[in-house]
C-alpha cells in the first residue's frame, strides 16, 4: 500500500519528462512497410478468430467497427499528424459510399477490388480539390471551411434526385461469399472479412506514412510551419498530401460501408457523422492507431447500446432516436474529465504504472 502512494507522488514528474518515443533498434531491423504488413496480418488473424466464435449480428457490427476504424485513422493522421482540424470528414465517406453505389449500379460487371480502387481514386481527387483550396487556412477557418462541406454535400444528393436518389438514397445488392466457401462462412462473415482485409491493408499504409519521413514532416508543420519550411519541407504540398491521405481513407471507409449496408442515404452522412468522428477520435486518443480503434468501437457500440437501452425501458421514438447522441456526449465528457489523453492515453499511463511496480 505504501509503495503505491509513493509511486503516485512521483508520477507527475515522471509523466512530464516521459519521452514519447523510446529508441528500439530491434524494431528498426525490418523496413517500415514490412513491419506494418506483419501487424496487419496479425490483426486479420485476430478478426477471423473473433468471427468464428461469434454470430452473424456481431459480424456486421465488427464490419462497421472496421470501416469506422479506417475513417477515424485517416482523420487522426490529418488532425493529430498535420494539425489540420477537419469537421467535414463524413463528406469524404459520403463521396466514397456514393461512388461505390453508383459503380455497382451502373457497372455491375466490375469486381469489388476494382470498385474499391476507383472509390479510392475518386476520394483522392476530392481530397486534392479540398486540400488545395484549404491549404492556406488555419485553425478555426479550416474547421469552418470543412464544416461547410459536411453541411452542403448531403444537399447535393437531394438536389440531383435522379442520379443520387434523393433522401431515399441508393440501394445496391452486393455479392456474398464465393461459391466454394458456401457453408463455411455466411454472407455477413464474408463481408466482415472483406472489410477488415481492406481496412488493415489501408491501416498498414497509414501507419507507414505516419511513422515515416512524411509523418514526421507533417508533425513538424503542425508544430511550427516557418521552422519546417526553413528545414526545406514544402509546407503547402505536405498539408495537401495529408488531406489527400485522410480523404482516401475516409472515402474507402464510405465505400466499404456501402458494400456492407447495401444502401446509401444522405442522412447517414449528416454533419452529426463528421462531428461524431472527430469527437470519437478525441475520446479514443489522438496519438496512436489504438486510439482510433477504441474510437471506432465507441461510435458503433454506444449507438447499439443506447437503442437497446431505449427499447428495454420502452422509451418513445423521439427519445430513442436521440439517446445515442446523449450517451456519446456523456461518455465523451466523462472520458475527457478523467483521462484527458483519451482511452489510449489512460491505458498507456496504466501500463507505465504497472511496469514500474
Amino acid at each position, binding site marked *: 500500500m505504501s509503495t503505491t502512494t509513493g509511486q503516485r507522488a512521483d508520477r507527475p514528474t515522471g509523466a512530464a519528462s516521459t519521452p*514519447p518515443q523510446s529508441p528500439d533498434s530491434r524494431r528498426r531491423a525490418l523496413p517500415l512497410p514490412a513491419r*506494418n504488413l506483419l501487424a496487419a496480418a496479425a490483426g486479420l488473424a485476430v478478426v477471423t478468430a473473433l468471427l468464428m466464435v461469434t454470430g452473424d449480428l456481431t459480424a456486421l457490427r465488427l464490419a462497421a467497427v472496421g470501416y469506422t476504424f479506417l475513417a477515424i485513422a485517416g482523420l487522426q493522421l490529418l488532425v493529430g499528424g498535420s494539425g489540420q482540424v477537419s469537421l467535414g470528414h463524413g463528406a469524404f465517406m459520403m463521396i466514397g459510399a456514393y461512388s461505390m453505389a453508383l459503380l455497382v449500379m451502373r457497372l455491375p460487371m466490375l469486381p469489388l477490388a476494382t470498385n474499391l480502387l476507383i472509390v479510392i481514386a475518386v476520394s483522392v481527387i476530392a481530397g486534392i480539390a479540398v486540400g488545395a483550396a484549404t491549404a492556406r487556412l488555419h485553425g478555426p477557418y479550416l474547421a469552418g471551411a470543412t464544416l461547410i462541406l459536411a453541411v452542403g454535400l448531403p444537399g447535393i444528393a437531394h438536389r440531383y434526385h435522379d442520379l443520387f436518389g434523393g433522401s431515399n438514397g441508393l440501394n445496391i445488392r452486393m455479392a456474398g461469399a464465393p461459391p466454394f466457401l458456401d457453408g463455411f462462412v455466411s454472407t455477413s462473415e464474408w463481408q466482415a472479412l472483406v472489410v477488415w482485409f481492406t481496412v488493415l491493408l489501408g491501416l498498414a499504409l497509414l501507419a507507414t506514412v505516419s511513422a515515416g519521413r512524411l509523418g514526421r514532416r507533417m508533425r513538424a508543420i503542425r508544430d511550427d510551419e516557418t521552422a519546417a519550411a*526553413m528545414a526545406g519541407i514544402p509546407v503547402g504540398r505536405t498539408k495537401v498530401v495529408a488531406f489527400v491521405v485522410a480523404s482516401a481513407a475516409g472515402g474507402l471507409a464510405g465505400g466499404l460501408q456501402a458494400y456492407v449496408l447495401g444502401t446509401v442515404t444522405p442522412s447517414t452522412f449528416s454533419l452529426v457523422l463528421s462531428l461524431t468522428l472527430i469527437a470519437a477520435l478525441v475520446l479514443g486518443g489522438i496519438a496512436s492507431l489504438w486510439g482510433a480503434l477504441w474510437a471506432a468501437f465507441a461510435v458503433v457500440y454506444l449507438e447499439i447500446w443506447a437503442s437497446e437501452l431505449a427499447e428495454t425501458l420502452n422509451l418513445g421514438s423521439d427519445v430513442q432516436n436521440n439517446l445515442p447522441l446523449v450517451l456519446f456526449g456523456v461518455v465523451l465528457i466523462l472520458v475527457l474529465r478523467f483521462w484527458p489523453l483519451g482511452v489510449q492515453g489512460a491505458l498507456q499511463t496504466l501500463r507505465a504504472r504497472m511496469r514500474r511496480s
Partner: protein
Amino acid sequence: MTATATGDLLRAEGITVRFGGLTALDAVGLDVAPGTVVGLIGPNGAGKTTLFNVLSGILRPTEGTLTWKGAPVPSRRAHHSARAGIARTFQGLNLFPQLTVMDNVVVGADRTARGGPFSLITGLGHHHADERRLRERALAALESFGIAEHAHRLPGTLPYGVQKQVALARACVSEPELLLLDEPASGLSGDQVEALAEQIRAFSRDMAVVLVEHHMDLVMRVCDHIVVLDFGQVIATGTPDEVQADPAVTRAYLGTPADGSTADGPAAVDPALGNGDTP
C-alpha cells in the same frame, strides 16, 4: 553559371521591402563571401529581421534581386532556399515542441534524404536507408553540439541554453553553405556567449555565417565584416574597427548630442559602442 572561388555566395542588391506605406528596407545591399562571418547590426526597428526574412526566403522583397552562387534566384519560397543550402535559426528558437530533440534535428536533416515522393508515401525504395542515414546524421550533430544525452527529451523540458544548442544543431545538421543566426546570444550567460563565439568561428570553417545580434562584444569579436542598418538603410559597412570608428554608427545608436551641435558633427561618445549593451 559556375561560381568562381572568389565570388560571393549570396549577393543582395537594392532590396526594398514596403509594408503598405512603411518602407522597412530601402535599397539595401549585402554580399556574403564563403567562409566569412557577416554581422548585421542596428537599433531596434532598423530592419534587421526583415532583411533576414528576405535572405531566408520567408519574405519576398518588393524590389531588388538576390543572387545565390552567381545565379539569380527568381521566385523564392522558404523551403527552396533551405534546399539550396541556406539554414537559419530564429530569435524565438521555433523548435518543434512536440517532437523529441532527436526528431527536431532529424527534421533539420530532411533535405539530405535521397528518396522522392514515391518513397515518402509508400515507405518503400530509399525510405529505410534514408531514415537510418538521417538518424545517424542527427545523432552525430547532437554529439558534436554536446546534447546527445537529451536526444529523447522534449525541448520544452530543457534549459534555455540547451534549447539554443538544439536550434543550432537543427540548422547545421544538413551542412548548409550559409547559416543565418538571429540573435544567437540573447538570453545566454557570459560563459555561454564565450562558448558561442568559438562555435561561430568554428562554423565559418565550413560555411558562411550572417549574424543579427545586439551583443556588441560578440559581434566585434567574431565578425569579418559588419553591416549597420538604421531606418531600413545601410548607414555603414566595413570591418569591426572601421564600423566602430564610424560617427554615423554612433549617432544611430546614441542619437545626436543634445547640446545643439549639428547632425554632421563628430560624435562625442565613442567608447560606449563596444560595451555589449542594447541601446
